[in-house]
């Protein structure tokens, strides 16, 4: 069998592997919803102020909440497959619609964060590996250690104190200045201006992570036989580092960027709540206060699906990038 059809089979296999995981998460979602105190009817009755027990019973019948649990689960599964995640009682809108509305600010924040973290992480890691065991290397290690230990929300607040309150360089919150009605390029600039602090905050942790990984990856590659061969050929250290070692060291780091996406979603809940960035994380934060469980579960489900999807895509890209990978 040739390689491309092998890869195709591998992709199909991975797709099929992803389905039970998502199914398990959906089923867990259903039971979590049932675990919560009170059901949708209680919430509705609470909002209406008063409701007779007879009326509530009728409502339960209408929503199918009087049926046995397995039947309810089947209905829930059917709804999820049809992308119906129920209604958010706080916003009085279908959850799916709300989530789709708020998806793109989060994707924007995550994309810029990954690019910043991976880009600078690679540079810093490379720099540390070249200057191994010097004070520069030590400084980078200390930076990574401290960053690992710092809570994201605190970094965000300190950024606001330093760069928004003491120096009025960046806005404290939001995604754009909606009162200014910018259009076209001005609007892009405005959003980019708002994006700076949240992106730096969210990327710090991953920056430290990728720096460490890049350094380790470089050191591992320096120990390989091909480096000795290159030296024996009389290549300069500069050429060995930048042409031979760097290329091979990049691969594992780029892959790890995908694996971290689950943690990145968690981080964006925090960062979005600090900077009032109107994405999914902020939506989750708001749903906490309104006790809007349907909405929270929807966000949770979507982020889980996102993780499965990104991991799949990264695996596939990895196969194409590195022909040595066995696809069986």
């Amino acid at each position, binding site marked *: 069998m040739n390689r491309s059809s092998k890869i195709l089979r591998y992709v199909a296999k991975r797709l099929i592997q992803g389905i039970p995981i998502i199914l398990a998460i959906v089923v867990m979602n259903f039971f979590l919803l049932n675990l919560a105190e009170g059901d949708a009817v209680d919430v509705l009755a609470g909002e209406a102020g008063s409701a007779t027990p007879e009326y509530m019973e009728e409502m339960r019948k209408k929503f199918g909440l009087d049926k046995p649990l397995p039947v309810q689960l089947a209905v829930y599964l059917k709804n999820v497959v049809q992308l119906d995640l129920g209604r958010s009682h706080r916003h009085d809108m279908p959850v799916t619609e709300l989530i789709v509305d708020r998806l793109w600010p989060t994707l924007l924040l995550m994309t810029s964060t990954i690019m910043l973290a991976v880009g600078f992480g690679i540079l810093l890691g490379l720099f540390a590996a070249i200057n191994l065991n010097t004070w520069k290397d030590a400084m980078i290690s200390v930076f990574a250690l401290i960053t*690992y230990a710092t809570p994201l929300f605190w970094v965000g607040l300190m950024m606001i104190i330093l760069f928004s309150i003491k120096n009025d360089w960046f806005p404290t919150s939001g995604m754009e200045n909606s009162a200014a009605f910018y259009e076209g390029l001005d609007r892009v600039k405005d959003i980019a201006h708002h994006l700076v602090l949240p992106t730096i905050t969210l990327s710090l942790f991953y920056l430290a992570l990728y720096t460490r990984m890049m350094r380790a990856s470089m050191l591992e590659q320096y120990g390989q036989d091909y480096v000795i061969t290159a030296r024996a050929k009389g290549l300069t250290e500069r050429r060995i580092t930048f042409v031979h070692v760097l290329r091979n060291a990049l691969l594992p780091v780029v892959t790890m960027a995908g694996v971290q996406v689950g943690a990145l979603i968690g981080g964006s809940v925090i960062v979005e709540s600090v900077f009032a960035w109107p994405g999914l994380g902020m939506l989750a934060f708001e749903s906490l206060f309104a006790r809007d469980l349907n909405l929270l579960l929807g966000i949770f489900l979507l982020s889980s699906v996102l993780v499965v999807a990104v991991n799949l895509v990264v695996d596939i890209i990895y196969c194409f990038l590195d022909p040595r990978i066995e696809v069986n």
Partner: protein
Amino acid sequence: MNSFWNRFSRNKSAVLGLFILGLVVFMASIAGLIYPDDPFLYSRFPLSGPGVNGFLLGSDSIGRDVASGIAHGAKTSLLIGLIATLAAVFIGVIFGAFAGYYGGLVDDVLMRITEVFQTIPSFVFAILLVAIMKPSIESVVIAITVVSWPAVARLVRGEFLALKNREFVQACHTLGMGDVRIMMAEILPNCLSPIIVIGSLMVATAILIESGLAFLGLGDPNVMSWGFQISDGRSMLRVAWWICTFPGIAILITVLAINLVGEGLNDALNPRLRERN
């Protein structure tokens, strides 16, 4: 024991970490003595700066002492971190031990379950769990445990896979020992070192998760915690920088110290690993 300390103390930053961690534990244990009052107790002096009106680290919007909150919050953070980690290690060891020891179908089923829990974005899951169970110390501990055990399960499974066919285990089989006894009394003690290392690092992560939950308003409303202090001081950021700043430094220092100790333990318990670096 002596050689362990020799190896541990070779790593100077680990010793520093242990010293700082000792200070934090000491502060937590004497919090009730130096600040006998309830840390939620408000005073007549809101928004006093550090050193003003007798507040070492200032007071917050309703005059609560920030330093007292930090001292009492240390107890919360350390306890939650420790209990959640112990629970996660317990569950992870059971899952990993059975999966690695029995292999086959048991391994498949247990590892599929672990995989699902590893795929789920852990912090979002923790938020969801606490929101459903209502915020309290117990629900926070449960949530952190639920999102932390898979890493231990994978580690323990790997160790059990590597050890289960070794001679000493075969000897146990010939002696007629039961499976559970072989797992818990014979194999487990042989993989304690990596479990201790991962456990120590997990305490640090647990403290970070706890502070994040408390920051989002998902902490126990009756217990003082660093995350709560920071989220409470958020609205006063413009006028009172100290309310948010000092509890954050407390988290940073504590987590850093635990991480340093964890790395020191790693060096001391896995000398072979160290040489590879």
